[in-house]
């Protein structure tokens, strides 16, 4: 790969440069050891974490996520999973900023209901405005509505993260057309967040021109999470390279032989 192609593989979010276009969650693993092994195998540099009450009275020496994933080795992306209002999500991320010593890069996700975990885009937009004004770099989970995606970009979000399908559903890319419209219209990175089930889903997202994919359950709930993490790494790279290479045009009604039509033995 020449230097230019290599350069194009670098990935920029809010002024920070990353090599991997795969972002991963840290939930649902068997234990912290498996969490770390899967993440390292995936090559992901950005990892999402949730903010929750600490367990008071817990043994001080009991390991925590931070012991296994030191914030100096990974870029933490504290999220607002479980928040249903703009106020709750802003509060959560301000606490996260204090927890992580002024860390500004965050994932905003404001849910609409507990059955579908579908985003409440009105609350999301309100929260995004407040957080951007407060100095946060906001990567935002949203629906695949192109108008909403554009509005989130316009209020200053540094990455727009539309769902491929419902969180944790593994249903894959259900509306590639909407994702294409979003990718076409936005100038900030577009990262598919939620719904990826297996490697081909991640490749499809990247082939559409997404800048990255964020996933958790697809790896953590695989029978062999470490192997799936490796598969996802390859699928993201393959999809990205296929996008950069530019696919051949589709010919719906006319085949085209790969071998010469001249010199056939008579």
């Amino acid at each position, binding site marked *: 790969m020449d230097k230019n192609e290599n350069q194009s593989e670098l990935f920029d979010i809010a002024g920070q440069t990353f090599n991997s276009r795969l972002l991963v*969650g*840290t*939930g*649902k*693993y068997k234990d*912290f050891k498996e*969490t770390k092994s899967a993440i390292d195998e995936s090559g992901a540099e950005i990892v*999402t*974490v*949730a*903010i*929750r*009450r*600490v367990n*008071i*009275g817990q043994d*001080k020496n009991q390991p*925590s*996520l*931070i012991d296994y994933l030191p914030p100096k080795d990974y870029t*933490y992306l*504290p*999220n607002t*999973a479980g928040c249903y209002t703009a106020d709750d999500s802003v*509060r959560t991320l*301000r*606490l*996260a900023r*204090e*927890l*992580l010593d002024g860390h500004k890069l965050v994932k905003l996700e404001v849910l609409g209901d507990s059955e579908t975990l579908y985003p409440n885009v009105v609350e999301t937009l309100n929260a995004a405005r407040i957080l951007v004004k407060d100095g946060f770099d906001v990567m935002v989970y949203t629906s695949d509505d192109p108008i909403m995606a554009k509005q989130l970009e316009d209020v200053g979000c540094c990455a727009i993260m539309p769902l491929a399908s419902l*969180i*944790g559903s593994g249903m894959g890319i259900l509306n590639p057309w909407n994702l294409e419209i979003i990718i076409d219209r936005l100038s900030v990175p577009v990262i598919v967040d*939620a719904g990826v089930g297996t490697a081909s889903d991640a490749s499809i997202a990247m082939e559409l021109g997404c800048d990255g994919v964020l*996933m*958790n*359950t697809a790896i953590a709930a695989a029978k062999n999470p470490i192997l799936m993490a490796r598969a996802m790494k390859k699928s993201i790279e393959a999809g990205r390279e296929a996008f950069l290479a530019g696919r051949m045009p589709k010919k719906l009604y006319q085949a085209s032989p790969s071998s010469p039509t001249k010199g056939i033995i008579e």
Partner: protein
Amino acid sequence: MKISINGKMQSFDKDVLTFETLIKEINLEGRRFAIERNGEIIPKSQFNKYTLNDGDKLEIIGAVGGG
């Protein structure tokens, strides 16, 4: 004084209690966390200066696995 910590009432047999002392009392020293008192974040740098009041409601949070 009585303080609510993560939704649970706890009593402390002290007239003056700094956040620094409280953290030792509840065995959180050396762990990574952030504290909110009555909706307001208490900066780590102020733990030795800020004191608690009877009836304060604290939320003490940390990072856990999540997507």
